[in-house]
């Protein structure tokens, strides 16, 4: 007892100062301002929108295999193998390309092409009938999926930044799922946010292979009941003037999302809103080659379709070769043209998404919750503190000091780690108070027992702490174990609860055991031996 009390007291004061710094930081402006800058409030307390969305990575895989199938046909032709069809036969397996019609004598040459570096992402298997199936390797699918999710996050971040949201959270979510978490403080109109995020704004230019037709059936009939493997049916947007139509388009686009360098809202010659776009140099060259081969004055004139989010926006004959500039018209309002060109500028989402979870809290509900939570915490704590003073008299002061210090350290922890205080987090604080009281009660009851057994004050304190210590460790470790598991498997507000509970219990181990002991010791030191303890 009394070992290096001054040192211990200095240590406690240092901890107190450090954690107070954690709560307020370097003071600036009002105290309230300083605190709210350090302690982040969850969306349930300050209002905002919480979204969980899933990226359909299978789409990205499908479009990669589509492109490779076209390239494969060309490569086989270059290698002197013609009459081959490469494409996908199974829509539930976007990662598979089936190649059929390879002449038996050319099989070795074909294998040479498949095993070349270009198709390193694929595994080739040959069936008995000579059909070769290229399956994208799991590792390649995984890295493509990861890239797709990463690009989606980038795109969403750019769109959100342009909305002017401060401190948004946009990050991967879940365990190995293709999910993204978006948290937008201060924005409670989740509908509008969803719209802006969800529009994939995938702009492509496809060559037209046939159409327009009134319905899918009509399109099938016009093509002898079979859609050619290199083509797809795409619906056109219905407008006031024209009903919905169906077009037969070449499957692989001539120009796609990443080929666009810029897009701006503008007006066409009639003054109607449209969008002017610019292509990258590389895509411009490609586009020039294509349009000059198929312009109206060439041997095989054609037309092309501008497809936005898998709907045909516009179909135009190719009048002359185009290099890198073009425009999209088609019944936009001014706002739509502006929004759409923003989305084109920030880039298309690499795959479509769907929302799994949407939660939004208005600012007034959040404020009411804070007020009620704080009132509950203060009321509960006051009642407990008063009771401790009455029941344990002088020693009640120990408990009360330990409780206040516990709360300060808990908040300081949150300030330092930048963790978020949520509504269940406030509940976690209240429970921390309960556990803190429990530790004090355990110790005090033990000290009373020792005193009843006739021990002197100093040795009763010593024994009381020694006995209660084991129990306190056991109870705290079990609760921290469950809080950590809650943190690992929980989400959102539940995690906030786990965080405050864990910090609170760690702080409590320090305050209830160490600080309270130091207070007892310094109190006893100034008394004569054998003096009674107020407990």
């Amino acid at each position, binding site marked *: 007892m009394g070992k290096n009390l001054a040192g211990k007291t200095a240590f406690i004061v240092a901890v107190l100062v450090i954690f107070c710094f954690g709560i307020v930081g370097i003071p600036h402006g009002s105290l309230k301002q300083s605190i709210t800058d350090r302690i982040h409030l969850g969306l349930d307390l300050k209002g905002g929108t919480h979204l*969980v969305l899933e990226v359909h990575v299978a789409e990205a895989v499908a479009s990669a295999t589509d492109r490779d199938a076209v390239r494969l046909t060309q490569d086989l032709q270059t290698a002197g193998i013609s009459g081959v069809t490469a494409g996908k036969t199974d829509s539930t397996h976007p990662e598979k390309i089936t190649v059929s019609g390879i002449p038996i004598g050319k099989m070795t040459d074909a294998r040479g092409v498949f095993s070349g570096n270009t198709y390193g992402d694929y595994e080739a298997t040959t069936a008995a009938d000579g059909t070769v199936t290229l399956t994208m390797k799991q590792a390649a699918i995984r890295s493509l999926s990861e890239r797709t999710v990463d690009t989606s996050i980038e795109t969403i971040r750019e769109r959100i930044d342009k909305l002017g949201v401060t401190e948004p959270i946009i990050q991967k979510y*879940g365990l190995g799922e293709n999910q993204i978490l978006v948290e937008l403080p201060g924005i*409670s109109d*989740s*509908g509008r946010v*969803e719209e802006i995020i969800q529009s994939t704004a995938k702009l492509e230019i496809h060559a037209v292979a046939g159409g327009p037709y009134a319905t899918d059936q009509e399109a099938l009939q016009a093509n002898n009941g079979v859609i050619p493997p290199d083509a797809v049916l795409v619906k056109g947007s219905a407008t006031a003037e024209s009903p919905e139509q169906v077009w037969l388009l070449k499957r692989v686009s001539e120009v796609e999302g990443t080929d666009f360098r810029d897009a701006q809202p503008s007006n066409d010659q009639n003054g109607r809103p449209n969008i002017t776009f610019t292509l990258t140099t590389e895509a411009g060259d490609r586009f020039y080659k294509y349009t000059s081969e198929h312009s109206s004055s060439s041997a095989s004139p054609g037309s092309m379709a501008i497809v936005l989010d898998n709907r045909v926006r516009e179909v135009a004959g190719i009048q002359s070769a185009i290099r890198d500039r073009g425009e999209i018209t088609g019944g936009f309002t001014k706002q739509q043209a502006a929004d759409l060109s923003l989305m084109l500028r920030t880039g298309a989402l690499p795959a479509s998404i*769907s*929302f*799994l*979870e*949407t*939660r*939004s809290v*208005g600012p*007034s*509900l959040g404020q009411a*919750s804070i007020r*009620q*939570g704080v009132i*509950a*915490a203060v009321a*509960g*704590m006051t*009642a*407990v503190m008063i*009771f401790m003073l*009455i*029941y344990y008299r002088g020693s009640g002061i120990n408990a009360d000091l330990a409780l206040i210090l516990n709360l300060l350290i808990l908040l300081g922890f949150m300030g330092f780690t930048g963790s978020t205080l949520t*509504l*269940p987090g406030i*509940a976690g604080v*209240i*429970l921390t108070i*309960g*556990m803190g*009281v*429990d530790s004090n*009660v*355990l110790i005090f*009851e033990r000290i009373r*027992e020792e005193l009843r057994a006739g021990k002197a004050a100093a040795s009763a304190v010593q024994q009381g702490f020694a006995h209660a210590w084991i*129990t306190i460790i*056991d*109870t705290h*470790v*079990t*609760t921290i*174990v*469950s*809080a950590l*598991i*809650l943190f*690992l*498997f*929980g*989400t959102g*507000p*539940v995690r906030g*609860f786990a965080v405050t*509970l864990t910090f609170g219990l760690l702080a409590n181990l320090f305050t209830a055991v160490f600080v309270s002991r130091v207070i007892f010791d310094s109190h006893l030191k100034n008394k004569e031996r054998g003096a009674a303890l107020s407990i």
Partner: protein
Amino acid sequence: MEFFRGTNIDWLGKKWYFLGFSLIFSVSGVLSMLFWHGIPKGVDFTGGTQIRVAFDQNPNEDHIRQAIDRGGVHNASIQRVSDPSGHAANKVIIALPIASASDQAHDVGRQSVENALNANYRDSKFQIEQVEIVGPTAGKQLQKQAWLATVYSLIGMLVYLWFRFELIYGVAAVVAVFHDTLITVGAFSLTNQEITLTVIAAILTLIGYSMNDTIVVFDRIRENLATSRRETLSEVVNRSINQTLSRTVLTSGLTFLTVLSLYLFGGEVLHGFSFALVVGILIGTYSSIAVAAPMLVAYQDWRASRGKAVSLPAGKRARA
């Protein structure tokens, strides 16, 4: 001041009363779960849309229902928000069941509800306070996570108690908290209150709390076993419970006080959360005395009846 001093109650002698009491509560809860209200799950787990609207004046639920019906949403349930402290809350929760099995269409109804309210309540003001839309995938995911969290934290505690005491101590403690969870979930079923994510957090809290209580008693049993050799196990257990009774009542009482203030002042958002804790603390305190300790003794009696040595599961310290 002191409440309890030298209490000498024969707790284990009352084990049949305890058993009856526990059975009544858990069986009625289970019956309600099976045949009456089921387990009322909130939108977090079932999926669907929930819109909380605050009106300036006391809203008429029938008018809202008609307005939404005209707006083309026919299966909405409209529930008035009740505040535990008795304040009239001019709020309703409009709940729509899940739109379809696909995530693509997970919020079909929200816009229609908003439009319907806008069209019908332009004069008397209203405010959309909270929107929660959970798609089918997320609902399943959250449900799975809640299960995993509960099961894993129980396993974590069991392993810790096994390590610190002996396996039977861990098993008895886990049975006790399972008993508490069952009764608490039963209370939600009986009162037809929805179980949400925050309620799950509360249930995990009560598991931790009840475990605490049990450990305090077990710790005392271990300690007493190490020093006394003449008493029978049930005498030691009785004595240990009596010795810790003062602490048990104080801590539970004070924790109950804080939780009660949460229930009364925490607002309706935390209603379910604090309800679970109010029930859980009462039952968790009870179970450490009435379920966990008798189980420990019953196990030893069973061992003795099979002719095995009455090895007191005293933990490492006691054996030394």
